[in-house]
């Protein structure tokens, strides 16, 4: 009886008693969700355009952030370092296309997926070799990002909003808007959608697959760099981020693999759910449930709605 009370009633009583704390938790969830959504966005971009499930997105985030911090440490001004980091992501996109994807055209999806795991390992090794394995702090102030926090008095308590989190949410929104514009209006964006629909048909109307892949991987690189800066500003830039980036997978399951709005909403659901569950229910299980909550939600989701909230219904049902 007490167990049922603890599970079903007590958390809500706690929420009602301290609404300011609840708001703080929700805000934390919102911020975490934004970051998950950003990583998931990188996955979705590549998956939509090339059908490749890019396992390396997580390490691309780390790699981009590390390049930025590493270049700055060499004495290059922050904005120039940002531009150079973009160039590095561009070079990465070109070499991935040249050295990996081009040779794997027409292979089963699973082979492509595993090749991105190989790419992940390669980038981990390269990153650690060049930049060293220890965590680095992100150059937040040098990039002109706001620091500090605003305290809002609400419900007789304090709600603390970190400025960097607000900036992250705004930048994420801008990025998504920009990508949506790019996809729906520009010539290249339409070509990308054509490739996503059908490789052969796209080829036959004169769209170069190789070019499109480079563009898509570069776009994913830009998303990765943005994510890296935002995440790096909250915690340090380290290789542990790569494991956290795996959380984008459950986000994708929730949102659907091919849907940009799905990635965002999925990210927010996971972010909110994770924080709420950890704070109000986690104690019953001994804490630390954040590590698996997202995956288990995805697992349950898969059993009932495998195509996700917004995905196209193309999943083969067995």
């Amino acid at each position, binding site marked *: 009886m007490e167990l049922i009370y603890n599970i079903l009633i007590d958390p809500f009583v706690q929420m009602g008693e301290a609404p300011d704390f609840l708001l703080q938790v929700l805000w934390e969830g919102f911020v975490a969700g934004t970051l998950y959504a950003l990583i998931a966005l990188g996955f979705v971009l590549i998956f939509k355009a090339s059908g490749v*499930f890019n396992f390396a997105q997580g390490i691309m985030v780390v790699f981009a952030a590390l390049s930025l911090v590493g270049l700055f440490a060499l004495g290059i001004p922050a904005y120039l370092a940002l531009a150079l980091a973009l160039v590095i992501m561009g070079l990465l996109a070109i070499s991935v296309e040249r*050295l*990996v994807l081009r*040779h*794997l055209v027409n*292979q089963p*999806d*699973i*082979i492509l*997926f*595993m*090749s991105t*795991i*190989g*790419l*992940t*390992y*390669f*980038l*981990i*090794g*390269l990153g*650690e*070799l060049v930049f060293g*394995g220890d965590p680095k702090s992100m150059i937040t102030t040098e990039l002109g990002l706001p620091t500090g926090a605003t305290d809002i008095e609400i419900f007789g308590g304090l709600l603390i909003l970190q400025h960097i989190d607000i900036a992250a949410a705004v930048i994420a929104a801008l990025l998504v808007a920009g990508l949506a514009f790019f996809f729906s209006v520009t010539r290249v964006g339409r070509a990308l959608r054509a490739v996503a629909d059908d490789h052969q048909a796209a080829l036959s109307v004169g769209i170069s697959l190789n070019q499109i892949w480079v563009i898509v991987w570069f776009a994913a690189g830009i998303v990765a760099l943005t994510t890296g800066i935002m995440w790096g500003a909250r915690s340090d830039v380290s290789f542990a981020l790569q*494991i956290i980036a*795996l959380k984008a*997978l*459950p986000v*994708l*399951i929730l949102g659907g*693999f091919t849907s940009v709005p799905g990635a965002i909403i999925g990210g927010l659901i996971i972010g909110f759910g994770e924080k709420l569950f950890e704070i109000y229910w986690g104690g019953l*299980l*001994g*804490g*630390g*449930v954040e*590590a*698996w909550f997202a*995956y*288990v939600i*995805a*697992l349950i989701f*898969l*059993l009932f709605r*495998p195509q996700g909230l917004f995905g196209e219904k193309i*999943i*083969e*049902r*067995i």
Partner: protein
Amino acid sequence: MFYREAGQFKATYEADQALFPVRQDLLGVLAILAVAFVVIPFSASDFFLNSIMIPFLVFALAAIGLNILTGFCGQISLGTGAFMGVGAYACYKLTTYFPDVNIIILVFCSGFFSAGIGMIFGLPSLRIKGFYLVVTTLAAQFFLEWCFIRIAWLYNYNESGAIEVPQRLLFDTPITGAAAEPVVRYLIVLSIVVFMAILASNVIRGRIGRGWMMIRDMDIAAELMGIRPLYAKLSAFAFSSFYCGVAGALMVFFWLGAAEVESFDINHSFLILFMVIIGGLGSIAGSFMGAAFIWILPVLLRALPGYFGIDVGAATVEHINFMIIGALIVFFLIVEPAGLARLWSIARQKLRVWPFPY
């Protein structure tokens, strides 16, 4: 020249269906076994046994397990590390509750626990496949890791949170714990691995294994031909997890001696997946080749700079090692998706017709 099958006629169905239909193959395998069972124990140093042969065999067993699931049944799993952990922790709990039962029996029993857990996490495979399944196995990986940390009962409420292997005897010789000789542990691991490898190749040749391969090649066609996906997939998950569980138990009890949750983290899942890819999806021999390659290559790489008199930091070698493994994965997927096992079968074909090209 020496690899000719001419004159080897099969007079019975049994001979035709034998595990090694060509006599030279059988002799070759017997020779390898002779080296493994007789030459290595007498000649190898403790270092060689402890840090090369025993881990190689343990990982080969885990790779066979994953290969059953991924290579033969076509279901990708990133939860191998966690399933090994289930085996290890189950074995640890069993030794606590049944201190008098022979440890080797307990190692096999612990496999059943991980088979059960594997079947539970394999349930979603009935509705989904591919990347979607990867996510559910990731759920298994992270959830089980969390269990290994948070459920103190699993490690007997130790202060350290680690499982320590108690000493156990077989014929009055210590086979686990600090007092056990590397040679003894090596021989036990070798015997178990050889037994289970033979078992696996027979299961795969049989009705169950052919069902797995049909599901892998085309699930709808397999279903129409009377293979039940429910049984085929869940049995693949159970078999695979059983092998991983036994490998995990062997890893802790006969190699590491003590283990924490880090021994079963996602990096190990990746490592074993790499062994399967590089060795060859859908090949038992390939699992051994892949395990040898992935495990021994770093050891060689660590030794190489010193050999040439170049001083390179251990960390640098580790990073280069990562890069080489990553590049090799991509290389193998591009050039030879069927892995080392396929290279061997090409070489074998060349030997058969030598000195003619075909």
